């Protein structure tokens, strides 16, 4: 470590010098052996299906093809519909700013169907409602049939409550979890052979960034993890957002696994990244897709002041969510090795570091093979916009 030596080399040397069992059980060791799988990056300027479908198809081929992953399988796709559908950034359609774009969802569904997926289930826990997802997207001005008709056996399910099951499904975190040892979730997250996180590339007010992993924050049903969740048992219908997880002002319904340490920090910048890692540990992601053909800079939704519509024209996909999010951060102009105190994690812990420590995947770009467009060529500099925005805000504050 005293001479020129990459972090990877240092970790590998260290790994050779210490007992394997000890290392494997420590965050340092888990990071060293954290998986590194290929990530595909592609430029895509429009949401036109004639550009989108071949682009995604090529990306999936670069990852080894969808067929081997989904053929004959039930696929669950977690999309991102954050916030109420009546809320826009300016006049921009929701898919252009903070919702996963419907054309990307439809194109993905189409390609999954073409690759032989037996059943495709499009999942989301929309803001504070048990309304069918079809009804939520109608309010966003989408046509649900565009998605339902993109392949055979496609259906939506609102996972913000019990949904179509008789009981919630308990998924435990194999490593024991940072905040939660396990979660009670809608059955859809267990009743799928392949799980896809289909996210929007954005910054996030609490967690710094929201990519394929943070998208999974919405796995939690508000009936158990929401502000108005039942105390002993889940409420029948969701009520309110997930302040409980953000601030820890209360515990989930007693029927679900409680926090490991209710005396731990109540700071959202501590809790949200850890809860996200717990969730993707409990419900592993097989395919991570993060789209930013158009998106927003400055935050995760139009309620974030000074956010703006941007057109990065890029899509990132990978078979490991940590690797994929690390490449996304590179595309966004951020350092995926950044930790608390460094953009975009000025006030929070890095979800990527926590995930890497949990052994979920490496965030080290040197260990990740990037297929397709190199990161530098795909770069859209969210980091520079962030600096400008913060400088202006600093000036406004005087």
């Amino acid at each position: 470590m005293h001479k020129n030596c990459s972090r990877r080399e240092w970790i590998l040397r260290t790994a050779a010098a210490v007992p394997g069992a000890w290392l494997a059980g420590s965050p340092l060791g888990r990071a060293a052996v954290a998986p590194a799988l290929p990530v595909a990056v592609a430029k895509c300027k429009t949401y036109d299906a004639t550009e989108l479908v071949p682009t995604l198809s090529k990306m999936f081929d670069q990852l080894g093809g969808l067929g081997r992953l989904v053929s004959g399988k039930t696929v669950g796709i977690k999309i991102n519909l954050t916030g109420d559908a009546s809320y826009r950034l300016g006049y921009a359609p929701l898919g252009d700013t903070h919702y996963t774009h419907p054309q990307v969802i439809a194109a993905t569904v189409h390609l999954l169907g073409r690759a032989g997926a037996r059943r495709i289930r499009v999942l989301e826990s929309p803001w504070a409602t048990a309304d069918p997802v079809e009804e939520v997207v109608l309010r966003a001005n989408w046509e649900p049939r565009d998605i339902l008709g993109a392949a055979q056996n496609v259906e939506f399910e609102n996972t913000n409550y019990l949904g179509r099951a008789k009981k919630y499904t308990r998924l435990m975190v194999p490593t024991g979890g940072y905040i939660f040892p396990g979660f009670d979730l809608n059955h859809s997250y267990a009743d799928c052979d392949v799980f896809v996180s289909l996210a929007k590339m954005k910054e996030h007010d609490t967690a710094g960034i929201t990519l394929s992993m943070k998208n999974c924050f919405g796995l939690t049903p508000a009936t158990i993890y929401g502000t108005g969740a039942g105390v002993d048992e889940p409420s029948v219908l969701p009520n309110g957002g997930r302040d409980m997880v953000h601030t820890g002002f209360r515990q989930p319904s007693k029927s679900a696994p409680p926090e490991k340490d209710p005396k731990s920090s109540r700071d959202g910048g501590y809790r949200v990244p850890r809860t996200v890692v717990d969730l993707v540990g409990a419900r592993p992601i097989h395919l991570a897709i993060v789209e930013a053909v158009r998106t927003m800079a400055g935050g995760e939704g139009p309620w974030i002041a000074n956010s703006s519509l941007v057109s990065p024209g890029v899509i990132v996909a990978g078979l490991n969510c940590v690797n994929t999010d690390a490449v996304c951060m590179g595309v966004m102009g951020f350092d995926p090795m950044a930790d608390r105190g460094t953009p975009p994690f000025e006030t929070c812990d890095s979800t990527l570091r926590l995930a890497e420590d949990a052994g979920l995947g490496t965030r080290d770009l040197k260990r990740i093979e990037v297929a397709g467009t190199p990161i530098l060529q795909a770069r859209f500099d969210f980091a520079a916009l962030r600096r400008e925005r913060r400088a202006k805000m600093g000036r406004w504050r005087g």
Partner: protein
Amino acid sequence: MLTLRSGASRAAKRDTFDKMNAEWTPMRWPGSWKSPSALGLLKGTPINCLLIDKDAALLPVIKQAKQAGLQVAEIASPPPGVAVVPGEWPGVAMARGGGASAGPTGVPWVDSNSWKIRLEAARRPGTNIWVDVPPKGARVSASSYRTAIADAGAHGGRWVISLDAQLAAGIGDGKPDAVAAWKEITGAAGFFSKRDQWSTYVPEAVVGVVSDFAGDNEFMGQELLNLIGRTNQQYAVLLKTKLPKTLFGGLRAVIYADAQPPEAELRKQILDFVNAGGLLITGPKWGVPPGIPAKDDHPRYAARTLGKGRIAVAKADPDDPYILANDSALLISHRYELLRFWNGGAVGSYLTVAPDRKRAVAHLLFYADRGPDHASVRIAGRYRKVNLWTPDRPEPRPVEVEIQKDAVELHLPAVSQYAAAELEA
């Protein structure tokens, strides 16, 4: 959750009860305006009917007002052809301490007289409907007055202009800010009086509420109208005591939530509507409806199919009109909503069409004191031209229009409490 879809043809249009008349612009004469010279304040305004309390000191005012050709009456005995309904001060209800109070789901609680006007119009077609609600508090903002005028005017009624004491005194004394507020108030009233042809337009509706809205059904029926309006569903008031033959033409759904089962004739009419593709939302008081059970995964409704249509029967007697109003939006489906807002805030709406159906007006009401930023509205229908009118300007406002499949989307400029989108097919 079950989503019942229905496809009643919108070709056959319904007779409407909501036939309006709006020949008057009434004003309650402030008691402090004792000099007949104050009548000069009405010059250039649309005010043509004064409601003056019995007060010997105001006799000279009454005499001169009559000489000037103004109608003079008392609120208790308005001119013939006028119905006065007591109202609520419209706007976002403010909680103690100034914060906006919230409805059961946290959305702002809005008071509006729209449903009262429409119910009265259904009960007394062709009547002038005045809403009588004096301003709350010692001093009311000009924006709040504009809301009161627009809330009534948009729905074919008229708010009885009633000034708070401080404003009336200020106008009387010629104080510039009070005079400016007076001009805004009379300007807003003038906006509607110049467009009284809009009162001949008929409501475009997706859902009809069938009731007598009286007796045991007063609370549920009237609150349903109020709260369905808050969901921005376009509704029809259907008095079961006055049903015409083309009752349900153009509707996608009807709600029957009265405490008594319907009479045989009404039952047949409603079931014919369902057979033709409509949706009936009702409660157990209806009895066991015909048809066959459908897939049932709604927590509060059992579904049945009948002919081309569907029936959603509440599993328990509906006792909360808020839940029923919101359930109805989902049972019908947002697919069929005629107006859809983004960034609208505490919004209200009323879509009407000209008798020849070549023109329509979407009345857009924003009940917060400050109008919304970057609000958009999608209006279902094939329209090729849109003019956006606001009471503060004589000419239409520039508006970005996006033509969509079977709809237009308007990106509204900054507007205050009210705008009217006049649409041409």
